[in-house]
Structures are given as structure tokens and as C-alpha cells.
């Protein structure tokens, strides 16, 4: 009798059922004479098959009990057939010391035992040169044989069957979803609270306060302000955050009537920068100060970009250089060149590998999350401020979890750790 497990909720119940229903089949005869020659070897007593959990389909997981006393270098071989009576093809191998259910908590849960092996079969060899992929919604039959180091083959009289299917939800990411939804709820609640009471307190961020000073200095000196984007494209959160700062900066620069030059490495960031600066000038009531050529696409290569921007800093000696976004090795090149040019420099990045360089060289550094909060901080828009408050509350909760998780783990309780573990 075989089993076809298509629905696996709750997962462990299904696995248990599959083990119960996987009964020996008659068509593969056990060679008892060979078994007796392998002294002390206990052939696995059960075999089950199920759709591989949390996957995109085209894979079946075969589970069998571990042989307690297997000779060294012995392998299990999972056989696959499309018909109950064969022909049988090799679907995969596993050493007797191979992985067990408890090695894969994402698929079998944290309480899975270590007494059973498993193998994910996604294809089977029809001959030595070619293999066939497992198809969704088709019943496959599985057998198991044991190959000892002497090439002695022992067929177990076991079989099971199952169908593969694509899953609509990855249950291994359930904790991530719940935490994400909880954080979303906290953020939305705080936004609602901010609408009612707009006078929310946000701690002072020196780097953002200094933006006005930097732009004022550029105006007094009659020199340009350089806004240098990082290397990442528009899909990066830090680039989006830097665009939010650019929007505020372009508005103030337009009000002051000074020059803003925006350096870009990515063509999409360049296009968005142009629109952002243009809109900023319009918002400030000075569309006339917008110059298309001041938003510059320098070069798409890292060090060509660095060379181009450095050249402009050296030649034009800007009064202020704003380095915003995600930077790599070129960060130090920019910052040192700006420092030598005598510019007031404000850097904002979430690239923790480059933060030490910016902290060392720049006058002000906007670190990590401060970069994301810049838009709210500069605009003082209640809804944005509410989301920052939500973020802070989330941080407080996580810190509390960190402390209590550390205490619990110290005393041997790892439940809280598991809740936050990425499977």
C-alpha cells in the first residue's frame, strides 16, 4: 500500500501518517541470504514518500528509518519508478552517516527525530548519460536498496509513492511573516498616533542638522554643492533614502539660489535624480534654477566613477560634498579628495564596512538607519515621523527579546531563539 501526501498541515502529523501507511510491497523481493551475510546489519523497516515541503515543486522527499548497525561505507540508494512494478531507476544515494530529519528543521520541524534519513529526489537516472526530472501532479513509486562496501546489494521489500506539487506558501518562513506583519501593524498604529498628535519627539541627528549649515556655507562662498550618490541602483533602500534627502536638498538649494551638482553612477538613479531635482526646484518656486547638465551621469564603472567625481571635486573645489547611499571601496577616495579640497562633508550610508572611513574623514556622518529617517527628520511630516516612531518601538521590542532570549538560552531554554531563527 502506498501513500500520496499532498497536504502537509500540520507537517509532522503528515509525516507520521506517511510512516504508518508505508507498508511493504511484494514486487521487490528481499534477498535474505545476502542480509544474513551482512552480520549485524538491520535493514530499514519502513519507507515513506511525500511532496518536498516548502518548495517550488518537482521534488519528492523519501524518508526511511536509520539502520542502527550499518557497516562503514554503506550507501542507501533510492529507486524511482513511474509504475508500481517498475522498471526502477536510481533517484539518489545517501551514505549511512548521511543527514537525518533533525538536520532539516525547515522541512520537518524543530522536534524532528534523528532516527530517520531523508532524501529529496528531483530527478532519476534512466541510463548512465541521461536523467529525467520529477514532474508535478504525477504519481511516482519509490524503493530502497542498501549497497555495502563490497558492492553487495540488499533490496528492501519496501516501497512508497507520492506526487510532487508546487507549494503556495513556505511554512519555514512563517515566523518571518508573523514578525513582519507585527512590525507593519506597529508602524501603522504609530502613524495613526502621529496624525492625532503631530508633536512627536525625534532625537537630534547632527549630520542632518548640519545640512543647512553646509548649504548655507556653499551659498556664502558662492561655490557649488556636490551630491554624490553611492554605487547601488534604485532597488537599494539606501539609494531611495538618499533620493529623499536629495529632494529636500534640491529644494533648499533652489531657495538659496546656489548650484547643486548631482553625481550618478547608475543610469536609472540618474534619471530619477533629474526628476527629483527638477521637482525640488519647482516646489521651491524656482524652476528657472534647474539645469539639466548639473545632474551628471559620470560613469557606470566603480573607479571610473570615482575618477570622474574626484576630478570634478579637485577642479571645482565645491563648498560642500554630500556623500549619500551605499558605497564600496571608493568611499575613501571620495572622502579624502573632498577633505583635501576643503569642502564640508556630510556622508550618509548604511554600508557598515565603509562607515569607519566616513566617520574618520567627513565632518558629519549619518549612520545606518539615520539615513532612512532623514526624509522624516527634514520634512517633519507627521506621517513620516510616526513611521520612525514605529521603527523605534520595533527596536525596543527586539532589544527586549534579545535580552530575554539571552537569559533563557543561558538557562537552556531555546524556544525564543527558535522563533527568531531563519530556517
Amino acid at each position, binding site marked *: 500500500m502506498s501513500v500520496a501526501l499532498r497536504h502537509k498541515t500540520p507537517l509532522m502529523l503528515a509525516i507520521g501518517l506517511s510512516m504508518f501507511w508505508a507498508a511493504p510491497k511484494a514486487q521487490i523481493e528481499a534477498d535474505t541470504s545476502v542480509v544474513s551475510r551482512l552480520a549485524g546489519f538491520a535493514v530499514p523497516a519502513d519507507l515513506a514518500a511525500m511532496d518536498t515541503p516548502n518548495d*517550488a*515543486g518537482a521534488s519528492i522527499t523519501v524518508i526511511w528509518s536509520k539502520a542502527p548497525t550499518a557497516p562503514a561505507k554503506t550507501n542507501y540508494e533510492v529507486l524511482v519508478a513511474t509504475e508500481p512494478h517498475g522498471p526502477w531507476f536510481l533517484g539518489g544515494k545517501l551514505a549511512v552517516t548521511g543527514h537525518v530529519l533533525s538536520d532539516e528543521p525547515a522541512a520537518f520541524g524543530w522536534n524532528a527525530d534523528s532516527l530517520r534519513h531523508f532524501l529529496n529526489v528531483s530527478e532519476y537516472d534512466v541510463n548512465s548519460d541521461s536523467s529525467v526530472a520529477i514532474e508535478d501532479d504525477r504519481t511516482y513509486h519509490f524503493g530502497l536498496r542498501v549497497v555495502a562496501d563490497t558492492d553487495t546489494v540488499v533490496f528492501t521489500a519496501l516501497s512508497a509513492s507520492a506526487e510532487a506539487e*508546487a*507549494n503556495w*506558501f*513556505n511554512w519555514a*518562513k512563517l515566523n*518571518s*511573516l508573523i514578525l*513582519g506583519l507585527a*512590525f507593519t501593524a506597529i*508602524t*501603522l498604529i504609530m502613524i495613526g498616533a502621529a496624525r492625532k498628535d503631530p508633536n512627536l519627539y525625534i532625537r537630534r541627528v547632527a549630520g542632518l542638522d548640519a545640512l543647512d549649515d553646509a548649504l548655507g556655507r556653499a551659498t556664502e562662498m558662492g561655490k557649488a554643492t556636490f551630491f554624490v550618490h553611492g554605487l547601488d541602483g534604485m532597488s537599494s*533602500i539606501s539609494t531611495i*533614502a538618499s533620493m*529623499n534627502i536629495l*529632494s*529636500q536638498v534640491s529644494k533648499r538649494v533652489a531657495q538659496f539660489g546656489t548650484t547643486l551638482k548631482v553625481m550618478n553612477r*547608475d*543610469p536609472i538613479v*540618474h*534619471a530619477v535624480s533629474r*526628476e*527629483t531635482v*527638477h*521637482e*525640488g526646484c519647482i*516646489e521651491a518656486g524656482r524652476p528657472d534654477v534647474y539645469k*539639466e547638465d548639473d545632474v*551628471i*551621469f559620470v560613469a*557606470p*564603472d566603480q*573607479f*571610473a566613477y*570615482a*575618477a570622474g567625481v574626484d576630478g570634478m571635486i579637485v*577642479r571645482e573645489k565645491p563648498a560642500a560634498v554630500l556623500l549619500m547611499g551605499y558605497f564600496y571601496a571608493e568611499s*575613501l*577616495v571620495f*572622502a*579624502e579628495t573632498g577633505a583635501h579640497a576643503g569642502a564640508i562633508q556630510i556622508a550618509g550610508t*548604511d554600508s*557598515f564596512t565603509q*562607515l569607519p572611513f566616513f566617520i*574618520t574623514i567627513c565632518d558629519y556622518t549619518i*549612520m*545606518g*538607519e539615520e539615513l*532612512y529617517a532623514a*526624509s522624516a527628520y527634514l*520634512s517633519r511630516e507627521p*506621517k*513620516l515621523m510616526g*513611521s*520612525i516612531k514605529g*521603527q523605534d518601538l*520595533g*527596536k525596543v521590542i*527586539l532589544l527586549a527579546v534579545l535580552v530575554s532570549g539571552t537569559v533563557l538560552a543561558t538557562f537552556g531554554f531555546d524556544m525564543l531563539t527558535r522563533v527568531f531563527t531563519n530556517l
Partner: protein
Amino acid sequence: MLFLRRTFPLIIAFVLGSFGAAQYYIPAPWSQATFRDLVYISRIVWTFALFLGMYSLFSLHIGRMRRKQAGWGYSGLVFAAFGITFAAMAWNSGGLLLSPLRPTELDQWFTVRWMYTYVFAPCDATMFSLLAFFIASAAYRTFRARTPEATILLVAAVVLMLGRVPALAMLYDIFVPEFLRTDWLTSLVTDDVRQLTEWLMNVPNLAAKRGLLLGVSLGAIATSLRIIFGIERSYLGGGGD
């Protein structure tokens, strides 16, 4: 017009942002395929945006040449470099030109690969090597122990440098005379400094890094939520109104 400039982008941001978040939890092939297609679309948009970038670059340099701005001759180099690279690409890799005449001696060096190896890569490496000098000048500025924080930084940096390079053991062998080499001193040089280095990297450094990452991750989620729900609109221009 306002719908196309404001509302429509917000709808796109909401729909695609929500889908981007949801597909992380949906392993089904349609979900992964749709996400892959969206990534392909963004690459296509990138390619078209590159033309816009090229236009911006050329427009800037044409303006400089027209105004005879200081150093305008270098702008000419931009066009020369672009023209030569484009011609080489068309000649060799594109296989568009003069294919019956191949192989010619010209093919030996007039290739994009040659330009990459002998022009681009050395220039790139030169810019990268500047970092060595910049690190030295940045270190000098930082390590002037003017404040307690700078002093801590200086001490930590010296310990790290000694622990991470073989110079300490070498200097010990060269400069410390035999009679001074006590077990304590040898252990300090060979093991203790290295262990202290590992401790600095694995405890205070990692703790600070993880704290930063925690804030960055929460901030990234909050920013994504602001964009998906249309609360953050600065990237559209015109602030958050």
C-alpha cells in the same frame, strides 16, 4: 496629468511592492517566474536609461567644448574613447565589419578585450591603488590621540595590525636578543596578541556591527512600508505632501 505624475506611480509602488514582499513567502513557480520577469524588466529599463545617461554625459561635454571651458580638451577625449571603443566592439565582437578580411593583424590588438586588459584594467587598478595612500593619510588624521575615543581607536588599531600581519614575530626574531626571550614574552608575541585581535574582532567589533545591522534592517522595513503605503513620496519629487 496629476494622476499620471502622482497617483499612478503610487499604485505601481503599492502593487509591485506588495508583490515583492509576498513572493518571498510563495515558492510556487508562477511567483518566482513573475519576480524573475520583473527583474528582467528592470534590466531592460536600465539599458534604456543608459542611453539617457550617455545623452547627459555627451551633452555636458559638448557644452564644455562649446564654451571652451578650462580643460575642454579632455572632453574631446571622452568622445574619442567612446568612438574607438564602439568601433572596436563593432569590428570584433559585433562581427559587423569586414569579416571576409579576417584574420588581420589589426584584429590582434584592436579588440575590446585588448582595450580592457591594457587600458581599462590598469587605469582601474591605478584608481584602486590610490586607496593605499588615502588610508595612510586617513589613519594619520584619526590616530592623532587627541581624545580618549581616538586613543582607544589607536590602541585597537595597533593591536589589530600587529595581530593580523606577520611583522610582529619577524621583528621579535630580529630585534629581541636571545636572553630577553622569556616564555611570557614569546607567548605574548605569538599567541596573546593574536587572541586579543580575534577577541576585538569577534566581540566589540561584531557587537557594534550587529547593533548597526539591527537598526538598518528595521529602518529598511519601515522605509519599504512607507513607500508601499504611499506615505513616503519624496522620491517622486515635491516632498511628502
